[in-house]
Every structure is written in C-alpha cells, then in structure tokens.
C-alpha cells in the first residue's frame, strides 16, 4: 500500500480535522456505489479508507510515523458487497424510484444516452428555437391547443396541458431548426406565460377566488352563483358568515384540486338612512369586541 499521507493528499503534520476533511472529499468522489460505471472505484475507495483508518487512530498513526508498522497492517478486513454489486436489482426491484418506464421515456432515454453526444461522423443536429406564448388563466388551468405563428409564417399547434404553470417551458421535439447536415432537427422550446385573471388566483392545483357578498347575504345567508374554471356553480352561504370565511368547492380546482372561496363582506357605500338609523340605536344581544385579541388599551 502507498503512503497514507500521499493517498489522502495531506502533509505529515496535518491535524485530525484536515485528515478527515481530505478523506471525506475523496470518499465522496470514489465511493463505489456512487460510481457504478467505474470498477476501479472500489480499489481506490478501499485504499483511501484504509489510509484514513490508519491516520485517524492516534496510536496507529504514531506507530506508523515512527516506522513501527507499515501501511499494510491496517488493510480493511471483512469483505463486503457494495450496493452496486447487486447489479440491476437496485434499479428494477423494490428500490425503484418511480413507476416503470413508458415507451416515450425509453425513447428519450436512448436519445439522451447516445443521440446527443457529438461523436465522429454524426450529422449535426439543428438548433433549438425559443418562443414565448401567452395563455389565458382558464386555458392554462383546463388545457387547450394554441396556434403559434412562427417568424417565417409557418404555424405550430401547441398543446397546453391542463394545469400548466406560468414560466413553464414546453419542448416540441423536432420543431426547431432543420439540421444543416441532414441530422435531426432541433426542438422548439416554448416558454408559456399565464396571464393573470381578474378574479381567479392559483395556489398549486387549487384555485382561489375572493367573493364579495352584501351585508344581507352575509347576515341572512344566501345561495350565490360562483364562477369556477369549468363554469358557474351554486354555493350556499351560511347565515352569519364573516369576511374572511373560506369555503371549499371540492374538485373544482385544477386537475383534482379544489376551489377556495374567500368571502368579503361589502357594505353599502351610498347613503342608507334606514340602516344608519337602525345601527345608531341598535343594542346587540351578544356584544363583541372584535379587537379583544389585540389587547389595545
């Protein structure tokens, strides 16, 4: 075995911290399970681990420094199977990260594995083209097809998947520039900007709306038509519903999300002498201080 100091790349006088730091840096690079394609990683990892085992033990390090033992004496004993030794099983078995691949994934995988790598003799791929496209809030929520007119007059039908978010980029394979040398055409990359809606807002797949209600509706309760992205629905407001009350329209959001309705009580702005006269003399049966939690003197 080589000089452990040289293996870890540290000075002979290095302190424990420097040695640990050097070891961790190398171990992160050379751990066999992190390098399934590099058979030599196992030997490297064992060497640096053995060097670290020796140098991190003050007694062994002292004996080594005094020449009493050589580096061989500390070779790691127990044989072990690395995770990568289980070959395909980590990927295909119970530690699979997600659902199995569809045909499309496989195609793009192979394309990425071989297709893009510029190797000798390959035809040059055409350039990717970048476009931007504005989509209405409701169109983005429900999904739609938009026609994009390209600078050269050609058109491109862009399928907007339901629930698309502002700033997302769609890639249309082969819709970019043609290859100059008979290779694959580039892709069209379309950045979507979703226009804000006058009253719908979005939080993930949930749609949120502020719903103004009159004083009568808030106090007496009411059935109110409320817009959703799929068209209006009837919502029952319970009597004595306050501003800020949030109601949920289940499944009326985007792709299984919900719509939330936040009530906002609107008081009349025009003169209402009868209401004012009533309030001037009104003695509530249950007086409340709405600011009690604020502890204002």
């Amino acid at each position, binding site marked *: 075995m080589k000089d452990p100091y040289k293996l870890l790349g540290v000075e002979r006088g290095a302190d424990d911290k420097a040695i640990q730091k050097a070891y961790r840096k190398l*171990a992160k690079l050379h751990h066999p399970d992190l390098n*399934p394609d590099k058979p030599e990683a196992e030997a490297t990892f064992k060497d640096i681990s053995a060097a670290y085992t020796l140098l991190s033990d003050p007694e062994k390090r002292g004996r080594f420094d005094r020449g009493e033992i050589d580096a061989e004496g500390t070779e790691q004993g127990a044989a072990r199977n690395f*995770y990568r030794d*289980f070959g395909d099983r980590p*990927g295909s078995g119970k530690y699979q*990260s997600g659902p199995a691949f569809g045909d499309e994934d496989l195609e793009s995988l*192979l394309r990425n594995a071989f*297709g893009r790598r510029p190797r000798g003799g390959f035809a040059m791929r055409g350039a990717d083209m970048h476009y931007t496209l504005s989509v209405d809030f409701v169109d983005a929520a429900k999904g739609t097809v938009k026609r994009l007119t390209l600078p050269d007059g050609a058109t491109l039908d862009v399928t907007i998947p339901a629930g698309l978010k502002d700033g997302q980029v769609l890639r249309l394979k*082969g819709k970019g520039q043609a290859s100059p040398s008979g290779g*694959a055409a580039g892709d069209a990359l379309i950045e979507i900007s979703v226009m804000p809606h006058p009253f719908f807002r979005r939080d993930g797949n949930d749609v949120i709306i502020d719903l103004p209600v009159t004083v009568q509706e808030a106090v007496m309760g009411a059935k109110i038509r409320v817009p959703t992205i799929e068209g209006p629905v009837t919502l029952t407001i319970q009597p004595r519903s306050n501003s800020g009350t949030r109601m949920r329209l289940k499944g009326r959001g985007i792709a299984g999300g919900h719509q939330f309705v936040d009530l906002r009580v609107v008081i009349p702005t025009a003169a209402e002498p009868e209401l004012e006269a009533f309030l001037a003399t009104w003695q509530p049966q249950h007086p409340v201080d709405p600011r009690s939690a604020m502890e204002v003197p």
Partner: protein
Amino acid sequence: MMKLEAIVTRFPDLEIVELTAWIEQGWIRLESDTPAAWVFDGIDVARIELIYDLRRRLGVQEDTVPMVLSLLDQVYELRATLKAVTGALEHQPAEVRAAVVAALAGADAS
C-alpha cells in the same frame, strides 16, 4: 437473510434505534411493518452499508441522505433499463441491431 440484531453487530457504532429510524423513514424497505418480523437480504444489507458510509464516513447530513438515495435509485433504475434494452437488442437479428445503431447514430437523420 439477517435479523436486526445481527445487522448492527456488523458496525462498530450503529445502534438498533438509529437503524430502526432509517427503516421507518423508508430508506430501507422491508416486507413487514412490524420490527419483530424484519428480515434483511443481501441488497438491504448493502444498502445499510451504503447509508452507513454516507453518514459516518462521508459526513452526509441526515436531511441530505434522502436526496442522495433518490438520485442513486434513479441512476440504478436508468442503468437497469438501459441494460434491459441492450439485452433485448442482443437477441435481435443482426440487421435489426444494425438498424438500431444507425438510428441512434443519425438520430432523426432519415
């Protein structure tokens, strides 16, 4: 096949409590939910050694381990898929293999 008690004896400083926490966080996936029935086969042991290396030797923080494992699982899954594809190709007639190689080389050249 090994039991929990046998696993921890393989490590100088791994307690059952910590290993149990790894399992409960889903880092190691076992057939049973009840600790008494836990058995570990070769791949589980190798995965425990990997997590042990990440935590103890490489100094990976606990909250970073799931990210590392997730990335590794994806790498191994892609490798397995690629291996399955190349394996399937090996059993194809020579002209099919040549066509695939040509298709990969020229991408959409046709």
